[in-house]
């Protein structure tokens, strides 16, 4: 049960980090855009890319978490999901 809680906590932290960091870059981008300080497109791109990594990092966290807790079935299933995400990126 504790291991399960630890996995949930890690997933929460990973998702919150990605959403928070992505949001930071997006908000900065709009501040620069409307203040006309400099070209903000790189901020938007970075923010969106960080955000898009959130599900990938979540899946990686689950692979590690379930492997560590001995639930290899779910670890392998998560690995399959990761493989599918990588395939989607390559296609």
């Amino acid at each position, binding site marked *: 049960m504790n291991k399960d809680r630890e996995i949930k906590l890690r997933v929460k932290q990973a998702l919150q980090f990605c*959403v928070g960091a992505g949001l930071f870059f997006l908000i900065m*981008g709009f501040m620069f855009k409307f203040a006309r300080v400099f070209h903000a497109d790189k901020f938007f791109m970075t923010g969106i890319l960080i955000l898009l990594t959130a599900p990938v990092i979540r899946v990686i966290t689950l692979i590690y978490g379930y492997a560590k807790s001995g639930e290899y079935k779910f670890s392998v299933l998560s690995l399959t999901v990761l493989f599918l995400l990588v395939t989607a990126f390559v*296609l």
Partner: protein
Amino acid sequence: MLELTFINFIIIISFGFCIGIMASVLGIGGGAFMVPFLVLFFEIPIHNAIAVSLVAIVAVSSTVASINVEKGFANMRLGIILEMFMAVGAITGALILFELDEKFVRSVFGIFLFPISILMLLKIRKSSRKRDEEIDCSLEKFKGSLSCMFYDPSISKDIKYSVKNILPASLISFFGGSLSGLLGIGGGIVQVPLMNLVCGLPIKAAAATSNFMIGVSACAGVFIFFRRGLIINEIAGALVIGIVFGSLTGVRVLHKTKSNKIQAVFALLLFMTGIKMLMG
């Protein structure tokens, strides 16, 4: 193409905020609303609108899942199984998007939604009668790695449930995922009723698990659009900001709202979406 003025920025953020609340409560991505909004209101080409919508769905899913997972609402193990099929479907859907007649897919989708909405409405009565039995289920019934339990603050009780019919649910998840890639929706509109009616999850667990899963299917779809340069960064960014704050607000609503109300709103939403899809 839309020029993102400050007024447009505020409109998109406000819209995103509303979608974020609704999506987090109902377990959907909100793409069924975002795509028509971007196409009809801002005259954005549909492929770009779908790409932007998928980015926003990743934002909804990640934000809501970060809260629901820790609170125990989302069934992660079931989510992992079903999201695998959804991801395959999303990749397939995104790849055939340019090949299929969109009207045909929309019609199939629309027709598919009517029986689900009616079944959900019928189940509201049934579930209210079964409520006590579900809460007091014995430990013999409560077994298997997919079984789960969560605390429902709206009725101040622990809810235990077992998961059934994984195989048919997986196949339908593939269909839900393909709609995600094809139409720019999260797939929650299929996944929530599926998990509620087929797998036997309580509606709150179904909504939370759906939110957990749709990020992966949307991500699988959006990578394909990303590689083709179809994401409009500024619009996606504005939508994401609104949606993240809306989702954070919506999650608090989910925890306090009674399940039957969510189910009724969802059934109505499905019915309306079905009509909209058939009308094209």
